[in-house]
């Protein structure tokens, strides 16, 4: 059986009733008596007649004084740029309307994007327009100017010139920008005693340390999932958390697309300590606590024959069976298997992974190595040096370029106290955060869409960060801050000068312009590097039985906390748990039952003498003796959105337990905190209706039509299928459930494209989340270790749409191309349509969710989509604005829309290319081919709704040794 939540599995009556109600209690007006009802109605009538008396206000037309080149008013322009996170650049293509960026897309030519983006890149647009951004230079918290800062900073640097910059410390985040690194080198050349520190809470320290142990040098590992038949992830979230996640997702999905008639399909084994996106895509998933994963890797290496068996194995029979089957599978796929260890795992596990890869002959085939793109020096040691200097009082000037170390540094470093001992501190950041509050100077940092910079992709490709708009506020970039003490140039001059020197030649300007157009310098990928293994000696840590551990990982939505003020990300249901607006201590159903804990119960956690109280969330697939914490939530100095959202788990994270904390004590406090999840909302009777269909690759080969067989047969119909066979386009969509990895990018792409508002935690708890496309997660199996399945659900665009029949005002009707339209200006808000929608995809504006008043947010809106007001129903219409623009464009040029030329926002963003949209009337279109596939099925097709959105059943490829 499949289930969505533990309540459903346990058949809790409240869940059953919630499933049958479109709107939860409280969604309609509170009960009123007849008198109050009449009063309200009279008042409503009076108020309703008032706006009818107003005339349309006169709007202004404001033409340019001087027409910018290339710009046609009303038509968008697209520019290439890049966003760096954790040092790694990913190429983007930004849609700009009359000079303001309105949508972020991936850059199809960029190796780290391939046309897709993840949720963080999608949401970065909202950060640009965030009204709570830092807007002015602050000196001791008082508004100041860039000029006074520059004067003070120059004086400071001059005073330390005599002793070669002793006492000057620069703290940056992970840097791959060649320009910034050269600037730092210039500065360090001028002040040889100055020190550069690099720290970011999400880093690759363990991976580099592992590489150093294994190969004697810090090299970067590149995975080629498209060449791998058997993949093992040792706690690595390579599809979501890895810097190269977008490329991984496409390669991984390409190895699984069974509908293309391929003869084989890759197989993914995941051993992990907390349910991740990657784990949810596993054919075989083994929940083990983080300490146990090292043990697992050791046992696997032993079984493979890499080394002689050491201490007697302490594995459970089940795990042993798993290891034996996995080892056999790996040995049968020498050269086409791949083992990857996660950044949260200690270096030993990385060493074991490298050795296994080497043993299996994978190096050079499925994994390759290059020099690292970023400085591989240990970031935690770098920060430790800084802390020592700070506490010793030897820091004259601390320049913090980006980041928020006060919040993110390990708790035992006591960074805030150290910071106060620095004689002078300068902090550059996009928001006034915990660190700015303690610094003498705060400089507002430009958003990447406002500044010139560069960066290197994970494979080394040099990517240019190009601004789309002039700085909205008095911001500066890190380049400009560093240049204050040298030449005082603008960021464009700094970046341009750097490259013109580096690539000096007659054709530089031409190359430069080409790079700006493409978003990257072609052929700047790092060359493959030959590596050779050193001998190794590993003895895994033995875990005390009964000991409880904590794992720390970055928040899947707000990363290390930097996106805490981003409402799109805060409201986005987190993968697997579907929690919104909060983080929690994730624990297993078995452990919760043992401790008598329910969702939202507050517990006290104690680790190395530090305590933290936070609510718990019971997560299927979590190992019993491990609690998973996400860091990033619970910010104290943050804008309006991030206030009171989540709990600060950095307070438990110390430098000796950065990812894994052992010997944790947990105590139930008796308190309760309301956590909000969307997992139980918009649920459809799933059990008997087979709305999610799946099978194994072997099943598919034996019976290719298995997905067509439903337990419910369609009722006889009088409906004529010819009705919608019109001459023009017939839009349709197919979603490949095998390819979908559940990364949520489609949700945010849709939100950004369609001006979808956020509603806040309280409204989400009432089931009023506005996302037009949701990603349902279905579990199958036991709560201890279920299979997880993702199903994106947009509007199905039923040909025979139940919503249309019940609308009293004709606000939801069909058009000739088969779309089920929602006409906002006709809608009067009866909500009958939503009640009659079997797919629960309609969203109602219970309040004025769209912000009509904040002028800084207005340029964010897509000008081609109506901004809906209160009392209006809304839903997906396959990005009708894109269809209209494509239709108009093609008709003006006198041809038909080419297949693949028109993409919906969800399709365009999808890293796995699981969503395909197009003309189903054209048998040669990609979508028609998918719909003709044997795996194609309609969700609730037995209702005769004839949905235009259909699914391709999910295929898994389990190991026969483990299924029997």
């Amino acid at each position: 059986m499949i289930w969505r939540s533990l309540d459903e599995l346990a058949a809790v009556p409240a869940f059953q009733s919630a499933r049958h109600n479109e709107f939860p209690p409280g969604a309609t007006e509170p009960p009123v008596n007849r008198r109050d009802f009449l009063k309200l109605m009279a008042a409503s009538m009076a108020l309703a007649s008032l706006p009818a008396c107003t005339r349309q206000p006169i709007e202004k037309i404001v033409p340019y004084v001087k027409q910018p080149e290339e710009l046609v008013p009303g038509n968008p322009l697209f520019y290439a740029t890049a966003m760096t996170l954790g040092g790694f650049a990913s190429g983007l293509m930004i849609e700009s309307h009359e000079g303001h960026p309105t949508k972020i897309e991936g850059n199809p030519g960029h190796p780290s994007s391939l046309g897709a983006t993840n949720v963080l890149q999608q949401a970065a647009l909202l950060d640009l327009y965030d009204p709570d951004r830092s807007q002015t230079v602050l000196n001791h918290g008082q508004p100041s100017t860039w000029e006074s800062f520059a004067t003070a900073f120059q004086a400071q640097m001059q005073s330390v010139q005599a002793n070669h910059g002793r006492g000057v410390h620069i703290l940056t985040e992970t840097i791959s920008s060649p320009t910034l690194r050269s600037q730092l080198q210039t500065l360090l050349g001028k002040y040889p005693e100055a020190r550069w520190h690099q720290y970011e809470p999400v880093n690759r320290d363990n991976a580099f340390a592992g590489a150093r142990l294994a190969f004697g040098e810090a090299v970067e590992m590149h995975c080629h999932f498209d060449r791998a038949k058997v993949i093992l992830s040792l706690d690595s979230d390579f599809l979501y958390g890895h810097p190269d996640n977008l490329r991984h997702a496409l390669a991984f999905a390409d190895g699984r697309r069974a509908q293309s008639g391929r003869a084989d399909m890759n197989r993914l084994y995941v051993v992990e300590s907390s349910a991740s996106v990657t784990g949810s895509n596993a054919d075989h998933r083994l929940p083990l606590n983080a300490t146990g994963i090292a043990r697992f890797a050791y046992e696997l290496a032993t079984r493979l024959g890499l080394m002689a068996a050491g201490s007697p194995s302490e594995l459970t029979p089940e795990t042993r069976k798993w290891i034996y089957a996995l080892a056999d599978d790996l040995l049968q796929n020498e050269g086409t298997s791949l083992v990857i260890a996660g950044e949260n795992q200690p270096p030993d596990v990385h060493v074991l992974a490298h050795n296994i890869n080497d043993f299996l002959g994978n190096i050079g085939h499925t994994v390759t190595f290059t020099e690292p793109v970023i400085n591989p020096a240990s970031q935690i040691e770098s920060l430790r040096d800084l802390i020592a200097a700070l506490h010793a009082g030897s820091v004259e000037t601390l320049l913090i370029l980006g980041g928020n170390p006060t919040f993110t540094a390990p708790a035992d470093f006591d960074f805030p106290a150290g910071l106060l001992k620095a004689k002078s501190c300068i902090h550059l950041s996009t928001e006034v955060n915990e660190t700015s509050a303690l610094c003498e100077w705060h400089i507002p940092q430009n958003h990447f869409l406002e500044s010139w910079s560069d960066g290197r992709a994970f494979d080394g490709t040099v990517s240019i960060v190009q601004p789309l708009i002039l700085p909205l506020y008095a911001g500066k970039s890190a380049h400009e801050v560093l240049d204050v003490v040298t030449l005082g140039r603008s960021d464009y001059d700094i970046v341009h000068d750097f490259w013109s020197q580096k690539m000096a030649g007659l054709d530089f300007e031409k190359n430069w312009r080409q790079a700006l157009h493409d978003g990257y310098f072609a052929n700047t990928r790092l060359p493959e590097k030959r590596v050779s293994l050193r001998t190794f000696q590993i003895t895994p840590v033995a875990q005390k039985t009964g000991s409880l551990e904590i794992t720390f990982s970055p928040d899947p939505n707000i990363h290390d906390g930097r996106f805490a003020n981003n409402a799109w990300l805060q409201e986005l249901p987190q993968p697997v748990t579907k929690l919104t607006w909060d983080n929690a201590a994730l624990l297993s159903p078995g452990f919760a039952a043992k401790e008598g804990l329910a969702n939202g119960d507050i517990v006290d956690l104690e680790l190395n003498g530090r305590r933290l109280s936070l609510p718990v969330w019971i997560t299927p697939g979590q190992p019993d003796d491990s609690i998973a914490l996400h860091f990033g939530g619970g910010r104290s100095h943050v804008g309006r959105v991030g206030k009171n959202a989540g709990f600060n788990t950095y307070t438990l994270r110390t430098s000796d337990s950065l990812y894994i904390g052992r010997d944790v004590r947990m105590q139930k406090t008796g308190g309760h905190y309301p956590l909000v999840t969307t997992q139980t909302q918009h649920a459809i009777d799933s059990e008997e209706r087979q709305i999610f269909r799946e099978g194994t690759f072997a099943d598919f080969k034996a019976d290719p039509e298995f997905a067509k067989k439903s337990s419910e047969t369609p009722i006889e119909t009088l409906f004529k299928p010819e009705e919608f066979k019109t001459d023009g386009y017939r839009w349709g969509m197919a979603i490949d459930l095998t390819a979908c990895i559940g990364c949520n990018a489609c949700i945010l792409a849709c939100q950004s494209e369609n001006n979808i508002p956020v509603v806040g935690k309280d409204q989400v708890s009432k089931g009023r989340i506005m996302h037009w496309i949701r990603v349902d997660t279905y579990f199958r199996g036991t709560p201890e270790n279920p299979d997880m399945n993702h199903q994106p659900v947009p509007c199905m665009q039923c040909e025979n749409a139940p919503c249309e029949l019940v609308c009293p005002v004709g606000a939801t009707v069909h058009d000739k191309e088969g779309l089920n339209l929602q006409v906002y200006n006709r809608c009067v808000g009866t909500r009958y349509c939503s009640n009659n929608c079997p797919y629960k995809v309609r969203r109602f504006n219970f309040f004025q969710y769209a912000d009509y008043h904040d002028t800084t947010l207005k340029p964010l809106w897509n000008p081609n989509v109506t901004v809906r007001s209160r009392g209006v129903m809304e839903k997906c219409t396959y990005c009708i604005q894109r269809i209209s623009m494509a239709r108009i464009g093609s008709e003006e040029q006198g041809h038909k829309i080419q297949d693949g030329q028109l993409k919906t926002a969800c399709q365009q963003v999808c890293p796995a290319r699981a969503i395909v949209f197009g003309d189903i009337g054209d048998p040669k279109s990609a979508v028609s081919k998918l719909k003709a596939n044997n795996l194609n099925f309609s969700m609730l097709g037995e209702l005769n709704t004839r949905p235009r959105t259909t699914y391709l059943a999910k295929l898994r490829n389990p190991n026969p040794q483990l299924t029997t």
Partner: protein
Amino acid sequence: MAQIFSRRSDSILRASLLLLLVVTLAGAFVLHTMYWSPYATRETVPLDQPVPFSHKHHVYGLGIDCRFCHTSVEKSAFAGVPTTETCMTCHSQIWKDAPILAPVRQSLATGVPLRWNRVYDTPDFVFFNHGIHVSKGIGCATCHGQLDQMPLTWKSHNLYMKWCLECHRAPEKFIRPRSEIFNLNWQAEDQLVLGKKLVAEYEVHTNQLTDCSMCHR
């Protein structure tokens, strides 16, 4: 016991009912008249502008083509309003000191754009596209009227949805050859015969024209 109602009560009641009917009908008539009146629609009402620009002078008098100023009318949703530089192309030579053009010169000097009042303003939930209308044979004059006769610009039609649908339901009544789009004085000899021919020739998808999604998204 005395009668509660006097003999006159019946008459008063009848008169009141009649009055109520008259007041209701009169009210409805007033509202209807107002709704369709230039007061509400601003049809034929010239709007104040920062510079009293005359289409009559520039189009009829000087014969300047529409596209000289409205540059994006064939390729964008928005027809385009001339930049200050476009105005100054001529007015840096002719009437270069005219007081009436002071705001234009000031705009060029300061870089602050002129702020024109929008004459044709559809509601924000309507997405009108100039480019497709022009390419399908709808002339400027069909919606904008005899602009060459307007000293100050006014709306020629009320822009109510009913008016849009007059053409969307029967484009053959309004369509014209592409060569005559910018000719404000063009008249067909037999519009219906020509219209039907052009609708077919220009591939106007008449079955789709009244879909809500044509204009609303």
